[in-house]
């Protein structure tokens, strides 16, 4: 870095922060349009929240490895207790019981569970004797650590978040070097069990969503409406979009949830394919940085944390984009850094903060490549 830029600024991970700012700024513009050309109520709070959570992420990045290791288990337990509390005293919104009212904000503990599980598993595998990796002792406790919160979240019921937790956990296990045949076995078992789970495990409304996903035109004004309208919004945007504030699908309320789950469609209508490439490219840069942080680390715990956090954000992005493009059923998962919503922003910024934390550790003890 040149001397012009102060060292504390220069050493920040700009290859991640720059695309992150692009996404936040772009998201704010789209939210501005989704509110019919107004900073209120979405865009301004989006930016303010980001500022607060970015500060939080910087604080988080100052944590030392030992502190993180030490807190992994207590954090997991606290969040797990909050999930239990949700079952006991949480309030119901939108058909499921997900939120805890903390007085100053509505907290969704299942969101916090995503990074907490990653942290917990990373700690578990970091402390597990290496020789025990291919044994059941590497699998059973980890499985229990994942499935306990998943069971609680499924009770809410919240399929999307459950899958996100499973995905994050599974990615850590995968990266931890568990035997490949377990994953293949699990994949086969999932293929067999999926139909059973579908018919006996899912709520009717969730089953309906899957059917609708398979054939959105079957009910264009009912459940297929979301997918159909979303595709119309993206498709009518064309190459360069209809122009800022010109999206008829979102402005005339044809697009459901234009500021949260379907913000990508709102964006694509006004900015077109070009805007879509910018968003996908920005995410790609962030993930590439996340993976490079993981690989650059010489420490097993740090590697697993970085990979798990990256995978957690990736899961949001992948499912959301597939949903709005009609490649996945409608599950209520917002698009990180663009959608309006505090809980998901909190989770994602915790992930970013954790990645920055690992990034900082790496700079202190860079991987030599020769030594371990």
């Amino acid at each position, binding site marked *: 870095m040149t001397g012009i830029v102060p060292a504390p600024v220069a050493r920040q991970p700009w290859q991640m922060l720059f695309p992150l700012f692009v996404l936040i700024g772009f998201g704010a513009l789209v939210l501005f349009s989704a509110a019919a050309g107004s900073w209120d109520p979405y865009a301004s709070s989006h930016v303010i929240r980001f500022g607060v959570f970015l500060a939080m992420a910087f604080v988080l990045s100052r944590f030392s490895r030992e502190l993180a290791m030490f807190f992994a288990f207590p954090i997991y337990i606290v969040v797990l207790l909050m999930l239990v509390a949700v079952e006991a005293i949480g309030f119901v919104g939108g058909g499921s019981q997900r939120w805890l009212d903390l007085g100053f904000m509505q907290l969704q503990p299942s969101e916090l569970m995503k990074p907490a599980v990653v942290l917990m598993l990373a700690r578990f595998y970091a402390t597990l*004797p*290496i*020789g*025990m*990796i*291919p044994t059941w002792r590497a699998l059973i406790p980890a499985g229990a650590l994942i499935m306990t919160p998943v069971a609680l979240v499924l009770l809410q019921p919240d399929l999307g978040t459950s899958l996100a937790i499973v995905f994050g956990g599974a*990615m850590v296990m*995968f*990266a*931890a*070097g568990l035997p490949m045949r377990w994953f293949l076995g699990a994949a086969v078992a999932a293929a067999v069990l999926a139909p059973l789970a579908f018919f006996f495990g899912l709520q009717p409304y969730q089953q309906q969503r899957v059917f609708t996903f398979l054939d959105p035109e079957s009910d264009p004004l009912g459940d297929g409406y979301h997918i159909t*309208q979303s*595709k*119309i*919004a*993206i*498709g*009518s*945007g*064309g*190459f360069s979009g209809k122009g800022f504030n010109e999206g*008829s*699908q979102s402005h*005339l*309320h*044809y697009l459901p949830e234009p500021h949260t789950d379907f913000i990508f469609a709102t964006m*694509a*209508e006004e900015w*077109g*394919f070009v805007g*879509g*490439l910018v968003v*996908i490219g920005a*995410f*790609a840069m962030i*993930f*590439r940085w996340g*993976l490079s942080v*993981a*690989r650059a680390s010489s420490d*097993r715990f740090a*590697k697993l944390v970085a*990979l798990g956090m990256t*995978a957690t954000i*990736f899961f949001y992005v*992948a499912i959301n*984009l*597939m949903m709005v*493009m*009609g*490649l996945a059923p409608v599950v209520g998962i917002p698009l990180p850094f663009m959608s309006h919503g505090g809980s998901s922003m909190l989770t994602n910024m915790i992930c970013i903060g954790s990645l920055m934390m690992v990034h900082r550790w790496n700079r202190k003890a860079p991987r030599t490549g020769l030594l*371990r």
Partner: protein
Amino acid sequence: MRLRKRARPREVVTQSTLENAFDRRTFVIGTAMGGLGVLLAARMGYIAIAENEKYELESESNRVNLSLIPPRRGWILDRNGAPLASNRADFRVDIIPERTPDTDATIDALTSILDLDENQAADIRKRVEDGPGYQPVEIASGISYDDFAAVSVRLPDLPGVIPQRGYSRFYPTGPTVGHLLGYVGTANAEEYDEQDRNPLLVTPGYKIGKDALEKQFEQELRGVPGARRVEVTASGRIVRELETREDVQGDPVRLTIDGPLQDYAARRIGLESGSVVVMDCDTGDLLCMASMPSFDPNSFSQGIGRVEYAMLRDDERVPLRNKVLKGLYPPGSTIKPMHCMAFLDAGVKPEESIICGGGRRVGNRFFNCWSNHGRVDMAKAIYQSCDSYFYHFAQQVGFEKVAQWAHKMGLGEEFDLPVASQFYGTVPEPDWKMRKFGREWQNYDTVNSSIGQGYYLASPLQLAVMSARLATGNRVLPRLRRGSDSIRFESFGFSPDEIGYVRQAMSDTVNGPGTAGRARLPIEDVLMAGKTGTAQVVSLSKSDGKTGPWKFRDHGLFVFFAPFDNPKYAGAVVIEHGGGSGAAYPIARDVMTFMFDPAKGMEALRALEQQWGGTAKERLNAKYRNYAAAEGQVIPPAPARDEDIFDQVEAEARLAARQTENLAEQASPSRVDNRTAAEVSRGSDAANRDDLQ
């Protein structure tokens, strides 16, 4: 570095193998992420670029709502250009059930906003249930601006509800033109399919002609719809108008009808059930075709309520049947002048006379005349309506010959008129009887038919045409659309003397020693000629025809033309169960008085209407109020399909026609009884039935 001993070396895991595995696996994960990213970008490119056109179209069809503006319907004008049917600007509210998730709640909400009563709400629910969902159902029309605004501001909570400013059909004279013009209504599913699913037909507020002239002239009256492109939100709220094309009003249709005369005649029928037809002898223009009692086409056009429909259906005077075209009656004595023309044509001289003697013996039966007229020639046979004369000469000439003339004069014929249907009735003939009943024509058939009884059935329109042809000696053709005044009709070839003779005899019926002295016009220099008729409905043994149950009373008929020596107007009046011709000719007199001197005619009508309790419209409204109050809520709903409304009545009409045929078939010929000739002559002297025949 710790190693764990395992039985199989392959299971040995070391720090470096784990590191390798991590690197490999993160590479796999990274590749998968990248792959998915490429897939998503490709998918987006496919939707946004390859399928762009399709989705752009769908987005436009979301955003832009093309709504048709129903064209203003063409006016129906009378011969002088006054509107018989026009349009009135109004505010209306429709609902499209298909676009309404919870119709019951929506209708409830509208009921309270618009302050509709229970009956109306029930009617709307019924129509919503019966109709196909895509078709708009009228909630209310003719509502005030305040109500219209009240519905408009609540639109976001009322999906599928369409308030709009439009036009509704208006018939200024209401019931008096009901049968003549028909009415308009929303197209039903069949009509929608028939007209190639023309979107105009399901446009809220658009109505098509449903009956009579409104239906016949539908294409001319329709006009060209306008169109409005508006930007709408998903909930249907209009954001802004993009562009508007004005509608083109339908062409007016000008009729031959004389509006005031039509109204006058219909009102003059009063409490009776019957019809009045007046036509122009020179042009064949139908000046009036009144049929009463009738319905109010204004209320039909707004979608008739169940209570009002029940009232009309239950009325034994069948207000749903157009009696001018679809009422069939034994013409009785009204055909006698026409039969005289047939006799003249067959070579009978007017001076040839018979002795009446109170009747005629035919075979082994005695057929009465209604009186003993002594010596009767053709003129006296007409003005005194002597039956014996016709018994005699019909047998002499042969009924085939007479029937031929009946057809030439318009009986048993259909006319080329723009009407939905007309009944052509019956002219009895030997061939016809053989075809119909498989039995030989008998002498007593000739006798019965010679005085317009037996199988004879004619509609009032046919009687009016007969009267016009009789008066002019020309084959006058009726018409309903105004056209050129210089028309020449084919002549029947009677000499002026022969025509003059019959005219004089018919004038004597009214102005001389005839049967209709009270029909004389109260105007100095205009003499009306006419012929009375009484048609029995049941045999003499059941009822005397003048009193008793309404259904058993005789029909009263009268055919006329005026002025008698140079006929300009001809017509017919038929009063169902009027108890004889005495019910018919005063109406003809007043109608013709109105024709020549409106002030004098109105004076007569005002006095009568005061007695009856108001004009036809006022009485219909009062009747509806009473009926609704008496029936309360327990009223079967109106049929959803408008065809049914008329199918039912037409069925009744046919039944009534059959009934007369059956009576005729039972050979209860009008004047047969078991009394001896001596008793008859005594009886007929005693009978003072001056006006009757």
